[in-house]
């Protein structure tokens, strides 16, 4: 199967298929049923990123530099993850302003500057030429390998003159193909749906071809990946081929090339073309942001296995760049090498088609048209002549660009490997990154800053990467890279200012971007933008702003007739009808004034064909007065951003208000609760006061009414009255105490005292009472003096209250009470226990509530009830003295245990009043 006829037939057959697909895509687009309206097709078209460099070069790089090749794909993965932020913004701008290329984009951003556009176009042309040369080289070499195997391909390639050099003819054939392909539209519109469909197909073909050869190598030539790995493990010189030390420049080189890949992915002219210009629907970006990285992962899956297999089998000293072909050839496969060749052809032609179309658009719109418009309009005066002119210019440009690529390949190509050429181009394209990416977010950036940044960055790129390439190919003295120019070592292009030890790409990227960004930012800060620059800067940086006005920016005046004439002269009758229909204006009459919307539409139509800078020149030639309403757009943006700011603050305030009102609601609920408690308290107090009062009154009335009462009975009644009066006054005393405690007016006289002594005194006070009730009181107070700060009378009141309570609640049959005092850290704990029923855990805090006892209802045990204020008062007093009082389970007697804890008072510290009262 390996003869010239078959290979040529298959190759041309494949190109013809692409052409059919492209024609079909264009026809679908014309009838409004886009063939590329799917995010997957969009992602596949982005895969034009994988060129012959990927297809053949990745294996070569993996053999020589280990995992370094992956960087070229990890970078775009990062960039695509950020696509919903960055690329969405660019797509939005490009759609609004009818951007046709990256040069047009940068020129439009900086006030539709023709000069800047021309510089970018020229730079893109220079930096892309080596890359195109690389594709030609790949096609030629792969063809030679396919035809001559097992003889070396080099001989066949080297001895060729240009008229028998296959790459020359490949370039010419491709030029014809691209002319048929990319410049079919007579209206020279900026989108090429047919081309995108063909590119998507090519991406599928190269992926399938690469996976096929990978599966063949791993599963047919070897028995699976484990077999391959096992053989690698037995070959010691291969054990470190995949390590990080193989990467040029080590960790620095790794990071440098990763950054380079991120930037280049966004700025390569062909990537900009498919990512931004050819995007038909903004929502495709979301899915493409993961489908495209997945494509990259798949196409790289078998790179390393193929490289390892190639190194293992030696492949008769073949170039690692050709392992993809030589491995199936060496295994005697027949059809597979042809498929691989087609895959490589796909990768190379896909890149060349898109790149050439992007470059030819730039050349015609940014380089040639501005010159034609400036120097003479004679040639363009006929109706619709511009379209023909544009197509002519683009066709010539396509041939010229491909021939330029061929010349570069013929003169210099062999000195460099695929990888070097590719990366040199990457660094060149990365020079657009500051003007493109920073300009998307930084409104202050000016045209002068962008221009000087680009020029300086490009100069340093040429010096550190392009020039040494010329030296290596023998055009200029090799001493340039060995000793530096004129023997000046610090000017050595590979070690500028003595910075050596870096790989050449990171080195070149650092210096060129340093100069680029430095001048860009520095000059922007010290120059004043023109009004148009300010407007465009605002339109670009605020592109995702919801209130951005999309039309009616024109304020000047012209007639429909003049505008129509302009459009007819440059775009033809069809364009006039489209523009007038878009703007919603019937072609009412030549003398009628053109609406602002119509002027905007006309400018956009011209921009779509000619680029922004030229379109603006043309519109200015017919519109009188203040051409563009710049003040109003700026004020719209500023007022809307102010409104947004107010809005944000309002939201903040309302959140604060919500929080405040929630706090108020809580406070209100608390107040209601307190009010209810107060009512309850008053009701309880009245009830408590009425009970003794009622009995006093009843007995007093009996005494008053019945004179004839025996003395005993009278004495008994009087005793009851006295007892109830005492209870009444005690209750009132307690209520007053409580009121003082709660209002903070309770006066205490703190002094240093011995708690043990005090406890003993309190025990003495209740002993008599306890004895009457048969309570067995145990004391454990003999652990020495316990010095605390407190009010002796009040503390005694508390302790007596605790003992009294314990007595009341102790077991009826054999009541026992225990009082004990013990030091605890630097504090003292006095606890009173009883052997009663105890207090349930849920009740332990509530016993300190006012009138708690009353809430428990009647006394089932028929005991004398207290007021229910004692414990509340006790806790208040103890808290005033800096201690605490709590209820617990009795450890020794099994009933309740109430413990008070007071801080110890150090000997030398003078006794001070505890806080707050």
């Amino acid at each position: 199967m390996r003869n010239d006829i078959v290979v040529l037939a298959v190759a041309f057959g494949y190109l013809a298929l692409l052409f059919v697909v492209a024609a079909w895509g264009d026809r679908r687009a014309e009838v409004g049923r886009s063939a590329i309206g799917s995010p997957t097709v969009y992602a596949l078209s982005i895969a034009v990123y994988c060129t012959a460099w990927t297809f053949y070069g990745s294996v070569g790089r993996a053999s020589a530099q280990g995992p370094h090749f992956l960087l070229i794909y990890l970078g775009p993965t990062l960039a695509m993850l950020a696509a919903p932020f960055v690329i969405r913004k660019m797509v939005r701008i490009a759609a609004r302003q009818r951007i046709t290329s990256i040069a047009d984009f940068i020129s439009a951003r900086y006030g539709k500057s023709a000069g800047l556009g021309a510089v970018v176009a020229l730079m893109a042309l220079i930096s892309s030429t080596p890359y195109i040369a690389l594709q030609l080289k790949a096609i030629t070499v792969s063809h030679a390998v396919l035809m001559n195997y097992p003889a070396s391909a080099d001989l066949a390639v080297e001895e060729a003159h240009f008229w028998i050099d296959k790459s020359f003819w490949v370039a010419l054939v491709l030029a014809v193909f691209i002319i048929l392909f990319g410049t079919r539209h007579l209206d020279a519109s900026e989108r090429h749906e047919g081309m995108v469909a063909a590119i998507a197909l090519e991406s599928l073909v190269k992926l399938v071809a690469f996976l096929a050869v990978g599966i063949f190598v791993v599963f047919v030539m070897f028995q699976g990946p484990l077999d391959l790995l096992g053989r690698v493990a037995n070959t010691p010189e291969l054990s470190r081929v995949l390590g990080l030390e193989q990467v040029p420049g080590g960790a620095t080189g790794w990071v440098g090339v990763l950054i380079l890949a991120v930037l280049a992915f966004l700025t390569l002219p062909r990537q900009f073309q498919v990512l931004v210009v050819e995007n038909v629907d903004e929502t495709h970006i979301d899915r493409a942001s993961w489908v495209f990285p997945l494509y990259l992962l798949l196409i790289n899956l078998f790179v390393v296995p193929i490289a390892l297999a190639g190194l293992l089998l030696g492949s008769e000293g073949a170039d690692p760049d050709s392992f993809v072909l030589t491995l199936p050839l060496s295994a005697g496969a027949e059809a597979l090498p042809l498929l691989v060749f087609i895959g490589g052809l796909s990768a190379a032609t896909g890149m060349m088609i898109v790149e050439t179309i992007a470059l030819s658009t730039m050349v015609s719109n940014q380089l040639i048209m501005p010159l034609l418009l400036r120097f003479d309009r004679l040639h363009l005066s006929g109706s619709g002549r511009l379209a023909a002119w544009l197509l002519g210019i683009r066709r010539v440009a396509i041939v010229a660009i491909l021939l330029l690529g061929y010349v570069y390949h013929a003169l210099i190509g062999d000195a460099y490997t695929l990888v070097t050429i590719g990366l040199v181009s990457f660094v060149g394209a990365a020079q657009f990154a500051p003007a493109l990416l920073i300009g998307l977010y930084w409104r202050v950036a000016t045209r002068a800053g962008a221009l000087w940044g680009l020029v300086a960055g490009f100069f340093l790129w040429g010096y550190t990467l392009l020039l040494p390439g010329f030296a290596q190919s023998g055009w200029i003295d090799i001493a340039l890279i060995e000793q530096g120019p004129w023997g000046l070592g610090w000017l050595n292009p590979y070690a500028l200012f003595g910075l050596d030890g870096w790989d050449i790409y990171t080195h070149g990227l650092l210096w060129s971007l340093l100069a680029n960004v430095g001048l860009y930012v520095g000059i922007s800060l010290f120059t004043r933008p023109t009004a148009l620059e300010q407007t465009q800067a605002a339109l670009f940086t605020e592109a995702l702003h919801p209130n951005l006005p999309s039309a009616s920016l024109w304020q000047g005046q012209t007639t429909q007739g003049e505008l129509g004439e302009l459009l007819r002269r440059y775009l033809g009758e069809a364009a006039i009808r489209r523009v007038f229909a878009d703007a919603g204006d019937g072609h009412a009459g030549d003398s009628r004034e053109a609406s602002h919307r119509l002027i905007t539409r006309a400018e956009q139509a011209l921009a779509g064909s000619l680029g922004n800078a030229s379109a603006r020149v043309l519109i200015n030639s017919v519109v009188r007065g203040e051409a563009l309403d710049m003040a109003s757009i700026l004020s719209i943006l500023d007022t809307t951003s102010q409104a947004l700011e107010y809005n944000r603050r309002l939201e903040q305030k309302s959140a604060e208000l919500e929080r405040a009102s929630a706090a108020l609601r809580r406070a209100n609920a608390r107040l209601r609760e307190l009010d209810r408690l107060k009512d309850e308290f008053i009701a309880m107090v009245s009830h408590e006061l009425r009970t003794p009062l009622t009995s006093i009154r009843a007995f007093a009335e009996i005494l008053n009414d019945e004179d004839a009462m025996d003395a005993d009975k009278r004495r008994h009644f009087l005793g009851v009255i006295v007892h109830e009066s005492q209870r009444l006054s005690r209750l009132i005393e307690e209520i007053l105490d409580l009121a003082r405690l709660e209002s903070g007016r309770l006066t205490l006289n703190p002094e240093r005292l011995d708690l043990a002594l005090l406890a003993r005194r309190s025990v003495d006070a209740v002993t008599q009472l306890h004895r009457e009730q048969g309570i067995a009181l145990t004391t454990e107070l003999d652990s020495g003096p316990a010095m605390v700060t407190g009010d002796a009378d009040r503390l005694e009141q508390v302790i007596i209250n605790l003992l009294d309570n314990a007595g009341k609640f102790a077991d009826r049959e054999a009541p026992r009470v225990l009082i004990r005092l013990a030091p605890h850290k630097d504090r003292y704990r006095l606890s009173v226990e009883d052997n009663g029923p105890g207090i349930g855990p849920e009740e332990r805090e509530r016993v300190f509530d006012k009138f708690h006892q009353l809430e428990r209802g009647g006394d089932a045990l028929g005991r004398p009830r207290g007021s229910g204020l004692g414990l509340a008062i006790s806790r208040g007093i103890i808290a005033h003295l800096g201690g605490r009082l709590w209820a617990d389970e009795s450890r020794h007697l099994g009933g309740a245990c109430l413990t008070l804890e007071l801080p110890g008072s150090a000997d030398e510290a003078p006794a001070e009043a505890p806080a707050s009262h």
Partner: protein
Amino acid sequence: MTTPLRHRARHSERLTALIVTAAVLFCPPLLLVIDRLPSATGIWLLLYLFIAWAVVIGLAAWLQESRRASGKGRR
């Protein structure tokens, strides 16, 4: 009104976090650690890179597609 806005802001934050994570996964400090693992074939680094890459793509797919689904649901 604020719910879809907040939803979108949350999506952006997650995406940003994923980008930062991916950048960290693909950069030297972690790579150096993996590269020093002992092995006869030196395959760990490569294996790590591919697995990390696949995980990042999987997370991105989940993030984008779940948003797409919920976006459709809301409409």
